[in-house]
């Protein structure tokens, strides 16, 4: 068995670019983009939507025409028109503007939550998966104990103590997703640590940190990327579930989940746009993050570089 290539493309932080051209990160990034648009059109479309979503979130107050709590009872429940492209809600607020501001909340929750979760998952999963032995057993007991808490209990406890709000939700989701996801990472690590190249590195005396950073981590990247992108979508969906249960980000803050489970469900017959707008936003963004993540995974997998 030949030893597979040791390092990935340099989009992975820290690892040097091994490419024959040796042009540095920028060049590799460009190659990646070209391959993305050429070989994975669906993923590319997903990526574009993600970027749009990000822009909406960051520049919400520049893009939105009205404020998110500009109550105007005169205009309430108006269908889509030139003035209000997505119509108005039951308090006369512009639904499009609320969706744009909602993007900001969703960006924060999604990025922060998913990042926190992935970092926690990787830390736990890599360390315990690789080290094994007693530390592993202890950690697994802790993860078991944690995961036997129903998510709901943790959620309600945290929300009750700290009050509903974005930071609470981000931290809670990060912890919940993170510790649960550590098992997936751990199992991937378990699969990888028995590979010959790891044994080889160990036998030449490489330090544990180096092995973890240069050999284990890059090779478990594919499931980690899928996990991250799933968590992105998952965080947005979790916020909408929390809103349905009444524990979401409080009013008048606009969140897609809140708009969908509140006015969206109450008025879904006479004023369907109240549900369609945030619903489509959620669906589009979650869909795009997942598809983009899949495409990235396909492109970044070192073992696949040789196969095309």
């Amino acid at each position: 068995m030949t030893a597979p290539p040791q390092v990935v493309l340099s989009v992975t932080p820290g690892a040097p670019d091994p490419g024959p051209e040796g042009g540095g990160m920028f060049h590799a990034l460009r190659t990646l983009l070209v391959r993305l648009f050429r070989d994975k059109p669906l993923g590319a479309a997903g990526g574009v939507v993600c970027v749009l979503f990000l822009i909406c979130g960051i520049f919400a107050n520049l893009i939105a025409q009205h404020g998110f709590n500009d109550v105007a009872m005169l205009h309430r429940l108006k269908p889509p028109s030139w003035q209000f492209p997505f119509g108005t809600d039951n308090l006369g607020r512009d639904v499009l503007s609320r969706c744009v501001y909602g993007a900001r909340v969703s960006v924060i929750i999604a990025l922060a939550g998913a990042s926190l979760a992935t970092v926690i998952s990787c830390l736990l999963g890599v360390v315990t998966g690789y080290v094994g032995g007693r530390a592993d057993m202890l950690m697994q007991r802790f993860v078991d104990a944690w995961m036997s808490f129903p998510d709901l209990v943790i959620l309600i406890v945290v929300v009750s103590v700290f009050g509903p709000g974005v930071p609470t939700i981000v931290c809670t989701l990060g912890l919940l997703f993170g510790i649960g996801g550590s098992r997936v990472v751990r199992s991937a690590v378990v699969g990888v640590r028995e590979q010959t190249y790891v044994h080889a590195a160990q036998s030449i005396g490489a330090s544990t940190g180096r092995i973890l950073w240069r050999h284990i981590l890059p090779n478990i990247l594919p499931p980690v990327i899928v996990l991250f992108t799933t968590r992105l979508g998952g965080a947005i969906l979790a916020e909408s579930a929390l809103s349905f249960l009444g524990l979401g980000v409080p009013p008048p803050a606009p969140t897609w989940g809140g708009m969908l489970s509140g006015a969206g469900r109450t008025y879904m017959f006479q004023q369907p746009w109240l549900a369609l707008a945030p619903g489509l936003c959620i669906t589009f963004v979650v869909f795009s993050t997942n598809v983009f993540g899949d495409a990235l995974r396909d492109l970044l997998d070192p073992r696949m570089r040789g196969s095309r």
Partner: protein
Amino acid sequence: MSSYVIRRLLALIPTLFFASVIVFVTVRLIPGDIIDLMLSERDISSVQLSRDQLLQALGLDKPLWQQYTHWVSGIIFHADLGKSLWQGIPVREQLAARMPVSFELGLMAMIIGLTIALPVGIYSAIRQDTATDYITRSISILMLSVPAFWVGTIVTVFPSIWWGWSPAVEYVNFTDDPLLNMKQLLLPAVVLGMALSAVTMRMTRTMMLEVLRQDYIRTAWAKGLNERLVVMRHALRNALIPVVTLIGLQAPLLIGGAVIIEQIFVLPGMGLLLLDAVRQRDYPIITGLFLIIGVCVVLINLLVDLSYGLLDPRVRQR
């Protein structure tokens, strides 16, 4: 192997003890305790007298460690998880009534999810980047992208307007009428299963793709083995390890956490029991529920870990 199993089962005890203490204490730390709730439902003033009276009646005036030992000894010696503070009904009875519902829903949802996910995932991996791959993957991800409560709402509300049909709101026990019971659980299980299947499908596809690139697979192709043999015999077993992990991850969610589905489809399951208990601060139910769920989760994870050994011989050596 069996010694491993026994060790793991023994490890259950400290885990559960540890966790039970945490839940016991945390739940009582949440602001808004049950006395306030009970007193608020009266229309006359609550003087300190009423409050003390209630505390004593509910056994909540004893120090925390005493309450805890009372609870634990009840479990060990009488298999008694305590009584609900609101209704005085034994917790055991309430759990026994609700658990089958959640289990059945969860099982059906998982089976439906796997039935969709595994074939689709494998097929997508084998026919990577073909039109079929794109379409099936897109549909699967689409199913994942719509919030569960919304799917549930649409599935219950629109048929009622178009065809005058809606799902049953009366829950029939499995023992009374198995067919009717499964009919009622079918729709919510499908809704739940579809969301689960998306995640599993993608992980299956990912891991299959990885495995299919391995050299030993290439050897199998080179040997001229037919596709089915290669996929089933060689690729599948190795690809399934993280997938099995995922299944293990999903199971606890289904035991305790399908609250939204239960709420929309009027199913008396454990999720709603827990939500109600937390809202009403019914401590014995919360701690009892947690204990049962904890035991189930740990057992399921044990099964998952054991299955690693079955699937991956390299793990067995360790």
